[in-house]
């Protein structure tokens, strides 16, 4: 057991749930979602802990529907060569959201975007929470959730139809179009739709 786990329990009390040792020998600490940012800041900035490196952020949903969805943070102290795994449990039936750790580690930027893209977990305070691997108009849901079928929700014909019907400007984010010089020259109707936050023309599914 990593000595950080008892230190966390002594500092944060009930905000730290159970701790466990995984099959690879690493310590897993379960943290209450509302205290995550405090715990992470403590791990990063307390002398003697110094978990300065964020290895990975991911999420796990179990086949057992009763079990909560977990957001997993792998943190590492490069100086001490120590690893720790921090988990936050979220109720998949409720709204999935947790604080972003981007302020602490900028490496979390794309990792959190990927978790958002694949699992639908919203990270509060993330500077640019957009889909990353799927395109922005993707309307089928969150691919790595267990209720998402392997072949996707839409038929192949429907997917092709949507791809062909998408507007070219949908390939740019709103931010990019607004910094473009030609923004003022876009047709008024297109500017209006961009102002409303539309990213392209997604036809209704049959």
């Amino acid at each position, binding site marked *: 057991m990593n000595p950080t786990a008892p230190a966390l329990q002594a500092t944060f009390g009930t905000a730290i749930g159970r701790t466990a040792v*995984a*099959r*690879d020998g*690493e310590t*897993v600490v379960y943290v209450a979602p509302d205290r995550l940012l405090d715990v992470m800041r403590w791990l990063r900035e307390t002398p003697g802990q110094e978990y*300065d*490196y*964020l*290895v*990975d952020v*991911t999420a*796990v*949903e*179990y*086949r*057992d529907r009763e079990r909560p969805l977990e957001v*997993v943070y*792998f943190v590492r102290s*490069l100086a001490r*060569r120590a*690893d720790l*795994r921090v988990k936050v449990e979220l109720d998949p039936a409720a709204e999935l959201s947790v604080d972003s750790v981007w302020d602490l*580690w*900028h*490496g*979390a*930027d*794309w*990792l959190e975007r*990927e978790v958002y893209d*694949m699992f639908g977990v919203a990270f509060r305070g993330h500077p640019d929470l957009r*889909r*990353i*691997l*799927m*395109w922005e108009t993707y309307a089928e849901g969150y*691919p*790595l959730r267990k209720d*998402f079928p*392997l072949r996707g929700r839409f038929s192949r014909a429907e997917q092709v139809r949507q791809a062909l019907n998408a507007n070219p400007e949908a*390939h*740019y*984010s709103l*931010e*990019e179009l607004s*910094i*473009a*010089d*030609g923004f003022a020259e876009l047709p008024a109707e297109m500017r209006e739709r961009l102002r409303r936050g539309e990213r392209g023309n997604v036809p209704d599914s049959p």
Partner: protein
Amino acid sequence: MTKRTVELELATPGLDPGGEATRVPLTATAEEPDLAGEHLLVNLGPQHPATHGVLRLVVELDGETVVRCIPHVGYLHSGFEKLGEYRHYNQIIPLTDRTDYLSPMANNVGMALAAERLMGIEITPRCTVLRVIACEMSRIISHMVWLGTTSIDLGAFTPFLWAFQERERIYDLQEMWTGARLTTSVTRVGGLMADIPDQFVEGLRHFTRTFPKTLAEIDRVLTRNAVWAGRTQGIGVMTAAEAINYSLSGPMLRASGVPYDVRKDKPYLGYETYEFDVPVGEHGDVYDRYLVRLEECHQANRILEQALDRLPDGPINVSDPRVILPSKSRAMSDMEAMIFHFKQVMEGVKAPVGEAYVGIENPKGELGNYFVSDGSAKPVRWRIRPPSFINLSALPKMAEGHLLSDLIAINASVDIVMGEVDR
């Protein structure tokens, strides 16, 4: 007598404000438009040879200077992690070939190590050494592709040919071992798909003897080359603190001066018993990344030599019939072997409840494989920690304030492979 001078004026046909034909002087005029503050949006990729795959960059330019760079990824997304949840552990191995397809063997090893850690399997000594050989061969071919493509991006064609020639020699060895050049699928949970053939050791020894000569040639052509140094030094700098903050790994992290190498600091496959050095950069720029990768090729060659020297005899697979398929002849003649064969093909190798993460030092950085199991033969979750995806996320930070042509150099120095970025 008067002297007549003719004023020659450089001019081009044009229109005056009234629409009449006139000649517009080419010399600088007072009313030159003020272009400062006018930004241009350039779309680079996804089909552009200098983006090393289907990476798309939307770049905001002030003149030639990059103000902002917004990468778009996902054009090669194949959903490997989702596919993995529907497959037995051994059936996942072919998927790993296709993630970082420039070092398929190392990916195979990383995935097999994670599954074995989850199941608590100890692999045999011969298998351990062969896997080290697989990893280091992958490091060499991946760095050779990086070196060749990067030098082409910066205008040097010759090192590309030399580097790809060396890569071909490794590919021949891979083909000899696995039958495939790229989709090797060389590992199995608990061992290897096949032992090395007879001429393999001899072939690899010949390679390790002659490879440093090519490295020396590349070194002589590039390292002190004024053009190369000018295009790479001071470009895309990441300080050590920034590199850590952005979760960079592998040569990108070490070029910034952080001496972290998974092989040294969290050893796997007995790397602690090999003698090799970890090159660390000083400035964190493109040039240092080049130096680090070049030196890593030398060190990989050293490890290959040591591995060949110590390669022990013995089995390549663990002797557990629940994990390793019995041979075909035994399965057809022995009742018990046939039952195990049947159970493994139909049900797969079952993993106990729990989770395991194993990070290995891939050519691109730390490749992590994270398995969560609920006790069945298929993982609940298979997560790849993709090193080039995370390294690429620092690209906007590195490119800011550099020229557009330097953006190409910086992007090349990240060493991305889109199969892994998009998975």
